[in-house]
């Protein structure tokens, strides 16, 4: 029924999750599983690339809320990049830009991670 997919890849010291399809109450647990897997593996620098994500619901946003504090305490972060306008609007409406690094471009986010660790 749902068309949601996550692929993970690595770029330098950063883990990148490419989301596609629709992230809603139904698919949010999949993303949660992916993020906890990364945390358990000791990978705390995470970029979520939204290029192919068409839709996000509040439950989808909730997953990011659930782990940001823990990741930052561990010295990492989740940076969000390449959002379509409709997806960004949801983040904006719910007040996320004050708390999260939301960037236009993935390369920019990788650079920021590298600068921070340098």
């Amino acid at each position, binding site marked *: 029924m749902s068309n949601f997919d996550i692929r993970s890849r690595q770029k330098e010291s950063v883990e990148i999750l490419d989301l596609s399809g629709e992230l*809603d*109450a*139904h698919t*949010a*647990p999949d993303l*949660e599983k992916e993020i906890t897997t990364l945390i358990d593996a000791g990978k705390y620098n995470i970029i979520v690339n939204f290029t192919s994500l068409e839709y996000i*619901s*509040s*439950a*989808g*946003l*909730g*997953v*990011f*809320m*659930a782990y940001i*504090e823990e990741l930052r305490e561990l010295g990492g972060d989740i940076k969000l990049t390449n959002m379509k306008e409709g997806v960004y*609007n*949801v983040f904006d*409406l*719910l*007040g*996320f830009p*004050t*708390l999260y690094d939301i960037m236009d471009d993935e390369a920019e986010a990788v650079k920021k991670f590298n600068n921070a660790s340098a």
Partner: protein
Amino acid sequence: MLIESHDPEFVVNNLLLIVMGKLLTPKAAIFLTGEQSGALYVAGSKGRTGLKKGQQLCSPRTSLPFEKSLYRLHEFENVLPEPVHQSGLDIFFSIRTSSEHLGYLCIAPKTGKGNYPETELDFIENLVIISAVALSNSFLVSRLKAANRELDQKVQELNTLFDISREFNAMVDRSQMLNVFRFTLMGQMFVRRFFFLMKLEDRPQLIIQQGLKGTLGMEDKEKLLEMDTEYMEISDMDDPPDFLKDNQIFALIRMSFQDERAVLGISKRANQQPYTLSDYNFLISLGNLAFLSIQKTFLLESRIEKERMEEELTIARTIQNTLFPSPLPKPKPLDISATNVPSRQVGGDYYDVLCSDERNLYLAIADLTGKGIPASLLMANLQAMLHVLSPLQLDMSETTGKINDIIFKNTPSDKFISFFWGRIDLENLEFQYCNAGHNPPVYWNAKKQKIELLSTGGMLLGALSTFVAYEQGTIELGEGDVVLMFTDGISEAMNENEEEFGEERIADILASHHHETSQQIQQHIVDEVKTFCKGNYGDDMTMLIFKVGPS
């Protein structure tokens, strides 16, 4: 350019710069009436006016003059506060449109103490008129933008409720449901710490705890569930529990469904934004939705459980029915009748009549502890033993002892069988019986014209291994004799005063109807019991009667 801009900030800034540049004014400021506050504030200030941008100048109720296009500072005495009088600003142009009073453009005297020539003042007046339109437009645009954003937020809230209710409807797994609720709450409300309190099996429990430390005492939980408003902030609470204070829980939301209550506790939002009335309304809707869905899973579970039990009872009933003899043997000279009136639950009553050969007839009645499938399996066990043992024509007391040992070995210690059985020699009408803890059957002795009870035997089957031999009773039956065997469903049937039907009533009915057929006697008992307890019997009613006819 001023007219086209929809940014008030830009208009204010440019107006100030144009005026100062054109007129060589050292200080200028713009005061505007706040969109929300309704009070005059400093929207922009250039030069050393001593005024700060954003500073409020008077209360919203202060009435300000706008009739003239131009005022001097002294006309604002007692209207505007001291800092304005100290600012060096002297000439105030009303910024107004035909329908709105927006504020003032204020300028200090010209550098070099010269007065402004009329033409310059006229120029400013015209500029202010144009700017007023631009400002008014830009305010309108920003109001529109704010309204749009609010609308978008509402739409988002509705989408969220729609999304989550659709998801909940498709779910029966509680933990999955709680997860979705958790994410939705975090995503929509931007809150990281919260709990969800509801009663599970009558005990209040925190079914969700997100980011919280410590525990909430049972009494505190009960107290929270009794909150009497739809939502409240902890600061309004008398003596809030430490758990709430320590975890910086900010507000409580109450959910209710029929008589059930639940409470959602939430911390402040991660971005420090306050909760608005609309947020609380959303939280109440979201909470109730989750609460209903969780309740639904419990109802579903209990329905499944009920269906499972009913199915089990049907199976048990089927087993039981196959164990009763059908049809009843009709050996001469006996007239035999039997009945089993099942209660709503399947009980453990059993009776049997077997002709092991031409000469010997066995009759048995038993009541097993327990209900349902376990009872019916034990019954099948007992039935099998009787059917195997009866053709062997063994000694009644010894056989009863053996049956007891097998039952004792095969059943848990809390399972017993009260059991009565007897063997009739159809040629000489000798009746040997053994009563293992069963209600004594009632015997109408036709010769003596009196009732006797058949209690010779021993203890219940299955309680202990046989260390004292069962005794057996022997009766020489004669024409007109009746033996009535029954289970406690009859003798212990209760009326509304909680009195039992009792064995005496059974004996009395037999004594007054002994001359009728076994079928008729049986019907009298059933009718009397039903009248006695008004159809409200809780246990199976089982009876086995035989009457000795003419040989």
